[in-house]
């Protein structure tokens, strides 16, 4: 998978210049991005069901990007709400509401690797927060599942310049993988919802939080962007994102989720 992505970027590589447009006093090109797109999501949550749910819907994101010759930072929020479905008889029809939101902050520096005349390679640290909530109304008492992850990890990107209809755009691939995480999933069979007067959503969400390494929480976020410059200095960014994570609760019941998103992002240069 990763090899294929690398080959794809490499096969089309031309040169490395990525930053242009209005520059700040510190010589950063800054972009405020607003994006919306189509998302296909699926999950398999062992706490709720033996069935896999999926759905196509809409996702939106906001981002702020700063880039100069050496440094690259990006703060991005993305969220979606889908009524997930699965194949079944009409008599046992069920939809699960799935809310997913994440915030990724990437902080990278240029690396002198590969051919700098062709590639702009950057790598650095990732700070990420992720929140997921599934609500299955047919599952009385235990149909509410909350999970979150706050992580630090590694991130990297490869960019190269590409001419689109006479305009100098860019083809970019980036990859982010969290390594150390504070995370929480429901207790065994989600009985944490509990027989008590004060057991509310926030209590449930943080009830089983634990600090873990790669084993209990694994997330891969991979994005491929085509950056197309407009005449006014702003940019259009077409993004395909694959976001996959598995998270394990204290008792070993896992959730597997995958998201494919095609997004059109308008980047205001300021």
């Amino acid at each position, binding site marked *: *998978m990763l090899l*294929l*992505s690398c080959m*794809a970027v490499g096969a*089309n590589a031309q040169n490395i210049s990525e930053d242009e447009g209005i520059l700040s006093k510190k010589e950063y090109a800054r972009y405020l991005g607003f994006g919306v797109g189509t998302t296909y999501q*699926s999950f*398999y949550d062992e706490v*709720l*069901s*033996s*069935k*896999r749910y999926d759905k196509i819907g809409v996702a939106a994101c906001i981002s702020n990007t700063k880039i100069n010759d050496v440094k690259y930072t990006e703060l991005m929020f993305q969220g979606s709400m889908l009524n997930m479905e*699965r194949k*079944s*008889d*009409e*008599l*046992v029809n*069920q939809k699960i509401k799935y809310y997913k939101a994440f915030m990724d902050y990437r902080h990278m520096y240029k690396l002198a690797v590969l051919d700098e005349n062709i590639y702009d390679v950057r790598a650095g640290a990732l700070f990420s927060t992720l929140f997921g909530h599934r609500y*299955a109304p*047919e*599952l*009385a*008492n*235990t*149909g509410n599942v909350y999970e979150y992850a706050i992580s630090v990890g590694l991130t990297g990107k490869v960019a190269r310049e*590409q*001419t*689109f*209809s006479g305009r100098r755009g860019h*083809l970019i691939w980036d990859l982010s993988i969290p390594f150390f995480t504070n995370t929480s999933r429901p*207790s*065994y*069979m*989600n*009985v*944490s*919802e*509990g*027989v*008590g*007067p004060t057991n509310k959503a926030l209590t449930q969400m943080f009830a089983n939080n634990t600090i873990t390494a790669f084993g209990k929480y694994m997330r891969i976020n*991979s994005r*491929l962007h*085509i950056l197309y410059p407009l005449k006014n200095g702003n940019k259009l960014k*077409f993004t*395909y994102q*694959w976001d*996959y994570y*598995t998270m394990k609760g*204290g*008792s070993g019941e896992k959730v*597997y989720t*995958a998201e*494919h998103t*095609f997004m059109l992002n308008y980047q205001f240069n300021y």
Partner: protein
Amino acid sequence: MNHFMKKHIYLFLLIALAFASCERLMMPKPKKYSATQLFEEVWSKMNTGYAYFENKGIDWDSIHNEYMFKIADTFNTQQVYDTLSQMLNILQDDDISLNAGFAQSYYKKPTFYKEDFNKQLLEKTYWLGAEKTGPLLYKVIDSCGYIYYGDFNQDVTDAQINVVIDRLKGLGMKKGLILDVRNNPGGKYDNMFTLFKHMGYDTAGYDYSVYLYQSAYKKGPARDEFTDYVGTFMDKNNEKKFAKKIRVLTNRGMLGVGNLFATGSQGFFNVRTMGDTTGGGNCGLTTSYELSNSWILTFPSTKVRTAGGFFMNDGVAPDSTIHTTATDEAAGKDTIIEAAIDNLWGR
């Protein structure tokens, strides 16, 4: 569209397809449905989640050995449902159910106790002229407030209770309140806590906390893997209170959350329960799980005991045991309500 654009679109799609294929490999494959596989799934889910094997004294392993020969992949849906329902009913538990869409299995324990609840009589005399707010039916009888709440599945809110309290006071409630929850089949815990918030009474200068009951949660697949028992409390709060003296009427028709309500009520210093022992059952929190053929299996996964540490399987005994009598019924009287009125008057 120029050559480069086309090339990149193809590249995009190729990469998306590659990632999609990868996740198919990483996610577990959904289980394929077969009668025997479903039997294993139901048996195993109960084996790792059901909270009361110890209390029931049933050897669940031997049930597996028995029923694995009673089910076959050639069975049609109805036969599979019938066999699995039969297996689940061996546990004789009101809180276990299998929802197949076309039918929902459940176990109803046969009871031979006196009902202590005559709806026809209540409708003809005590409920006549009563007002209703949300699920609460209420009126004032002999300067005592009277509320009937018959189903914990019917949502009740603080705002509704406040309206009822004000109205009862306006109608002349002076001696206290009778809260009739007889024949309540149980339901949502939230509604029970809403009622608890309005029990107790306002105290100036000191706080109180009422010990309602204790629970142990399943924390792993082994049959004896439970958390320690933890207490559930109701702290003093600012909600409007029903009355200084409250009498809660109970009978054998109260199940599930109804039992919890009866035992929790006994923790309040201004509440007395009157009538008969409640219907019993497990009272614990149930877990629901969707099986591989989309049927929903529900079973208790939490053990609950009274604040004193007693199981409620055989019901919660009232503070004062009173039964309705044929003589009173013939005279158009509900013995338990009459006793509660006398008690509030101090007669």
